[in-house]
């Protein structure tokens, strides 16, 4: 640790203290500080050139190869042992099938990972006909082993990448090995990689992004050179990939984002740097880390839409126009193009996940006590409404030529099944108290001007002409004439008396861009008008993209479990770092090969303890620094900063969101965070052991390595499959909550 710098010691990024003392952080380091470790080892080995010497020289090739081989062995061994659909294979296998059958489906995760699952099925020669029901046996024709291997590949590749990452973070060779071993011999990583799930890809993406980030950081003194650009763009690509697999990828994106902000902030503070260079840095990062990932993400959706061209189970989540463009759909078929008085229509809310305007004979239990109006997602005769003229205009006459409706017209909407008018009045809505209640009231003759709604056209994909309302393409608002409020269906569910359907209100807020107040005609019948083909207009890609993404977010938040139901699979955030629980991935029948999701205890407990130790370490040095001790060189500070603090931030970013999140959580949500905890653990062993005597070092590393490997082998049956009675595996049941055995 040859420290040349005799400047005030800095723990940048940690302290909030005196400004002046932080000044020197950005200053370039002396070149000598960097390759210290390599020197050390070279000196040692020059004395006696031998076989070991050769091994040592070629370690950078041999070690990764060896680790990769082991990774592939542990991840692939007996991968096809269990011929049944295990755990979430039921979901992701099914999504793969949808791609193969090209049926539109809806899911909370972005499509890249599932596209790859579909690809693996395609490569395996699978035709998409299997339903992937949980617990069912795979039929002959599916080469599920290949599909699993395809997934396991991503998990296995994480191991050499962890090796390179640790190396790039300036850890010593034994630590690099330890970190790699901890990733290799991590039972939970092994198990999760062996099935048709997205987690191995997510893990791959997270590890790859970290690697690229570390590599890019390593190039920081060689800005704008090809290698620098290469790693910048690789970082961008892997960010794009990981976020396209699961939105959890946003957390590692945030890590890179924080690093980039800090980096640019320092460059901004470097008064010697010309403004153009600063701008170039900024632009390069915008392109590499924002635009490039965004393009990758968009591309994954473009492929998604391109592949899924048939009508399927996810139609209802999309806009009417999008649905009309799917093959085999009912939406828009033979509907007349333009809407007239007397048309029978269904009216769809254009908000994300919006349903069809609906009414039924049940009444509001409070408020006016009149008939309920809701939004409903399923097709039903109660969704049908008639356009009728306002009470001021001439009555509807079935004989006369159709009167078309356009922007600014005032109409009534009559519910087809009950004959009542869509109505609103000065009574608070049942849930959203600040809005007005909307009900169905009266009939053709009974009623008043509070049944009048004025049409305000917002936009029309098909035409600039606003004088007509067109099926599917026209987005319009309905303004209540008397109250001046707008018909709205936010994503608020009514209680049981409203059958948990969506509340419809009339809102005083005039926000033309609020898509929950936008409506369009979905189904349309009118015998006097010629049938048209409203579906010939394409819904714009970007609009579909945004629509689908918002729908994904909102339904992800809606995954709230039934509070009364005991969920043995779910677990809570505090249980993960202490390895309190595992997860049974299939039924626990004696005849079935059983898999249990549980980590390597040393890796979990060690890495969790490491986080605490790291906090103490940082607090210790910060306080000592404030007390005027100058004990850390600039190189030491940088090492803590990049090899210690950033992994810890990564851990927090991947962990805290699950603490806050209200949705149901499972153990595997911790796996990306665990990787950063392992890196922190690596940093700490390196920090505490590197300056010790060789004996201490060797024995410490030997013990750690041996225990990691030993525990891995001890627990390997839960990863490779437990055959036979679960009782014979009770030796692994250290705690009652580790339910790998019923004994």
């Amino acid at each position: 640790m040859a420290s040349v710098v005799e400047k005030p010691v800095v723990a940048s990024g940690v302290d909030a203290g005196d400004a002046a003392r932080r000044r020197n952080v950005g200053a370039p380091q002396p070149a000598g500080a960097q390759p210290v470790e390599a020197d050390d080892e070279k000196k040692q080995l020059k004395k006696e050139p031998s076989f070991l010497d050769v091994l040592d020289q070629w370690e950078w090739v041999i070690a990764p190869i060896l680790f990769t081989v082991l990774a592939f062995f542990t991840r692939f061994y007996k991968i096809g042992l269990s011929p049944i659909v295990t755990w979430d294979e039921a979901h992701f296998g099914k999504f793969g099938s949808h791609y193969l059958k090209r049926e539109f489906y809806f899911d909370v995760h972005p499509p890249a990972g599932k596209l790859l699952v579909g690809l693996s099925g395609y490569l395996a020669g699978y035709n998409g006909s299997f339903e992937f029901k949980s617990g069912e046996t795979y039929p002959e024709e599916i080469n599920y082993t290949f599909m699993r291997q395809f997934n396991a590949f991503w998990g296995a590749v994480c191991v050499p990448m962890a090796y390179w990452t640790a190396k790039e973070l300036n850890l010593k060779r034994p630590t690099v090995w330890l970190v790699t071993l901890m990733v290799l011999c991590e039972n939970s990583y092994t198990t999760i990689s062996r099935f048709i799930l997205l987690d191995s890809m997510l893990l791959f993406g997270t590890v790859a992004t970290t690697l690229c980030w570390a590599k890019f950081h390593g190039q920081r003194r060689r800005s704008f050179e090809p290698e620098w650009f290469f790693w910048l763009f690789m970082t961008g690509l892997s960010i794009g990939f990981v976020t396209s697999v699961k939105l959890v990828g946003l957390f590692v994106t945030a890590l890179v984002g924080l690093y980039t902000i800090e980096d640019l902030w320092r460059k901004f503070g470097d008064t010697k740097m010309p403004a153009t260079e600063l701008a170039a840095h900024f632009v390069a990062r915008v392109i590499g880390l924002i635009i490039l990932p965004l393009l990758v993400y968009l591309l994954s959706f473009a492929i998604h839409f391109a592949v899924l061209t048939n009508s399927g189970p996810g139609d209802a989540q999309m806009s009417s126009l999008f649905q009309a463009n799917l093959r085999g759909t009912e939406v828009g078929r033979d509907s007349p193009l333009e809407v007239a008085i007397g048309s029978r229509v269904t009216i769809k809310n254009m908000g994300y996940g919006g349903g069809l305007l609906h009414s039924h004979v049940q009444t509001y239990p409070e408020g006016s006590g009149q008939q309920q109006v809701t939004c409903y997602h399923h097709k039903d005769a109660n969704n049908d409404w008639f356009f009728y003229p306002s009470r001021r205009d001439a009555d509807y006459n079935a004989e006369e030529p159709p009167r078309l409706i356009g922007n600014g017209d005032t109409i009534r909407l009559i519910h087809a099944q009950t004959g009542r008018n869509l109505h609103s009045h000065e009574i608070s809505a049942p849930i959203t108290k600040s809005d007005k209640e909307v009900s169905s009231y009266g009939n053709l003759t009974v009623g008043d001007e509070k049944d009048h709604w004025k049409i305000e056209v917002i936009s029309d994909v098909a035409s600039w002409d606003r004088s007509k309302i067109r099926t599917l393409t026209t987005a319009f608002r309905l303004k209540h004439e008397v109250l001046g409020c707008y018909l709205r269906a936010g994503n608020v569910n009514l209680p049981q008396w409203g059958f948990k359907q969506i509340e419809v209100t009339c809102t005083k807020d005039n926000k033309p861009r609020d898509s929950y107040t936008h409506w369009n005609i979905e189904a349309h019948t009118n015998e006097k008008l010629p049938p048209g083909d409203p579906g010939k207009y394409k819904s714009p890609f970007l609009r579909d993209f945004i629509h689908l993404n918002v729908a994904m977010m909102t339904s992800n938040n809606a995954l709230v479990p039934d509070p009364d139901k005991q969920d043995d699979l779910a677990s809570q955030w505090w249980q993960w770092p202490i390895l309190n629980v595992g997860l049974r991935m299939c039924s626990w029948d004696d005849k079935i090969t059983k898999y249990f999701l549980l980590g390597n205890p040393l890796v979990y407990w060690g890495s969790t303890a490491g986080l605490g130790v790291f906090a103490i370490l940082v607090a210790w040095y910060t306080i000592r620094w404030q007390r005027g001790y100058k004990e850390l060189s600039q190189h030491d500070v940088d090492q803590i900063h990049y090899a210690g603090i950033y992994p810890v931030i990564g851990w927090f970013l991947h962990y805290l969101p699950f603490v806050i999140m209200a949705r149901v959580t499972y153990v595997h949500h911790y796996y990306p965070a665990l990787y950063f905890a392992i890196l922190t653990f690596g940093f700490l062993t390196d920090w505490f052991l590197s300056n010790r005597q060789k004996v201490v070092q060797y024995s410490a590393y030997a013990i750690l390595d041996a225990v990691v490997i030993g525990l891995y082998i001890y627990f390997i049956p839960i990863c490779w499959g437990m055959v036979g009675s679960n009782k014979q595996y009770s030796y692994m049941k250290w705690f009652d909550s580790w339910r790998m055995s019923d004994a």
Partner: protein
Amino acid sequence: MARSLAVKAPSQARRASPSPSPQPHGSGAKSKKAAKRKVDYTSEGVEDNDVFLLPVSDYQVMILVTIAAAAVRLFRIYQPTSVVFDEVHFGGFASKYIKGRFFMDVHPPLAKLMITLFGWLAGFNGDFDFKEIGKDYLEPGVPYVAMRLFPAICGILLAPTMFLTLKAAGCRTSSAALGAGLIIFENGLLTQARLILLDSPLMIGTAFTALAFTSFSNQQELGPSKAFQPSWWFWLLMTGLGLGITLSIKWVGLFTIAWVGCLTLVQLWVLLGDYQNVSVRLFAKHFMARTFSLIVIPMAFYMAMFGIHFLCLVNPGEGDGFMSSEFQSTLNSKAMQDVPADVLMGSRVTIRHVNTQGGYLHSHPLMYPTGSKQQQITLYPHKDDNNMWLLENQTQPLDIHGQPINGTNAWYNLPELPYINDGAILRLYHLNTFRRLHSHDVRPPVTEADWQNEVSAYGYEGFDGDANDFFRVEIVKKQSKSGIARERLRTIDTKFRLVHVMTGCVLFSHKVKLPDWASEQQEVTCARGGTLPNSVWYVEQNEHPSLGETAEKVNYANPGFFGKFWELQKVMWKTNAGLVESHAWDSRPEAWPILRRGINFWGKNHTQIYLIGNPLVWWSASAAVVIYAIFKGIAVLRWQRSCGDYASPTFKRFDYEIGTSVLGWALHYFPFYLMQRQLFLHHYFPALYFAIMAFCQVFDFVTARVPGIGLKEHPIINRAGATIFLALSVAVFWLFAPLAYGNPWTKAECNRVKLFSTWDWDCNTFLDSYDAYSSLPISVAAVPTPEQSQAPHIPPVQEEAGQQAQVPLGGAQPEEPEQPGISGAPLPAGHQVLSREERIEYRDQHGNLLNEEQVEALKGKVEFKTRYETRTRLVDADGNEIPPPEGGWPGEEVVAPPHPDVQGAHGHVSVRYSS
């Protein structure tokens, strides 16, 4: 040391002369030297602003400000003469304190205790129930003015506190007076301070803490010479006391604690960095002093308040339903006799659900209208014969001849005590109806989930039962008392599940109410895979002839003060977090700094109280925060570019002092974004206080401290600016004042100041001219309404409907504002509300009306539950009565909303006629 003395001398000299102090900044070389001489943690550019050492003229200003505040706050404080907004609750709590009846509220007790004290001293006996907004105070003789006086006094003191705080922060007297003036003429603060509400006490608590901590910080920043001096100690201890007070009024005090905590950490960090003067030992002393003052004192104070709270509330009340059985057993008359410990076959027991406060496993001779149509099983919160169950073995016991002994008394004379061990299979026999607890594969009435089965009572007298009556006892060892209670069934100590043998489901209950046909009692089901907490039961009452007087007895463990304290905290937290229902007058935090909308408090007699701030004060305060944020953003950017702004002490002080206030604002504002519960404009007041402080400090710096812009040299600008701004604020205050005081107003004036449609008070309420008010038969002052004098037995009518009722009979009201109505129910022209009557109807559990004889016959045998209903009789021009339209009369909804904080918190306690 030499340096600190050197600083001290000029600083005292400076204080003596109000003229702006010369800064060492003037000559570069000198200032560098001065900077080098700085050897301890003393902050640069700080003067001693001890508020005890102000010139006499400042105290005169302070007294003047106080008098002004009193005049403005107390003006017509008796108005209105009826219950306003949340007085429903906080007045009601005072009644309950006086009666000693336990209640649950989401706020800590201090302010409610003080309100009670004021009421009690004025002779309030707790008989008035503050039931609804608009209920009259005068007739029952409630000393409501005395009760309003407490918040008013708090509100008055807020002005001098602001004055002193700004002085302690180093502002000129004129700037400090401006701050106090803005507090006085802030309409929102005024409205809150004139009613029985908690916000005014909360504000004075926060403000006092800010004063104490500002003074302490000032002493602290003066360096080692002031540390541990009397003034330093005094203000440190006062900060702790202030925190305790604030926290004991509302939990918003936690944000104040966060503010003090953050700044204390900064101070400690600076101390830590002065390694030449502050030894580790000295640092430890600093640290301990703060730990004691800022943690121990507030905690102790807070707990003491709850101590008083528990001392006052000794009787059962409507808050019982929130608390555990252990807690309830500490209340008078809820305490239970000791019960035999062992539960035996043949015991008559009551079985209670652990997790919800739903009560006892209950059945009554009513059938489910759905599902199996068998007899209902519910949870019922009160003691009742229908809660009694007899625990039977799966089979009847055998006598000495090997023959089964039949009948329910079969277990009474067995040679050995028939204990119920873990895993025993039982039948539960309902004594009153001769039916047994039963379950089968039928969906429950409300929760129609696949994994839940209906539970019913099934059979008849003499029926042997079937296999669906069998339940297995499974003791939950972790929740049971250790020892014998984990081996066999024991009263209270054993917590167990009842597993239905045939289907494997577990007896289960959750907070789901059954409909009217079961008197809204709680649903009981049998669940496969229900959560454990909701599946756990215990035996509370237990009788068995074989267990004599000498048998071992048990009772609830007394939770003790800490147990009760902690349980109440948890319940308050949960209730608070559960207040998520939307409310007609709620608002989200983003609407507050721009004063988007207010809260409708009260409306009657063509007057209205609507909580809205003084827009000028409000927006200026928000602007100050924005200005600081921009300043800070630029300062940080320039700092990173090494521009050296921080070399100027004025710059540094501006950043730190206003930063302190803005931090207070931020900590009292941003946390609300994280809250899912319903929020109101009045939650912004503590943040507003800090924002006003920031505004005055910015004003002070710009007009009197920043060198080089030419204002500092002319003290007149500071004074004139303050005067002009204050005058403008008073003018704006005056425009909106009728809404704060509930004064008469005119439509025209109202519409003139209603700048935004989101300021949704109703101008149509007011009359066209002030003259019209004097011709109103009901004066706003304390004159009884005509109805009351004519027909005293008619209770005061409520709210808007009251507007109609209080119009003299027969006299047409030309300017009647149009009532928002439901179509189909327009009020026919020419109809008059004749009267509203209240009479008592008795109905049985089926809703049948009972006549007087039947009622007489039932008296003493049953409990009666009272439900209020207001009936409106309407006659047309010919005097014929008009039947009420469906959905009630239009406009009958209450203008001001029910209590926002506690609404929905009180569990609906259902009482039924037990037979």
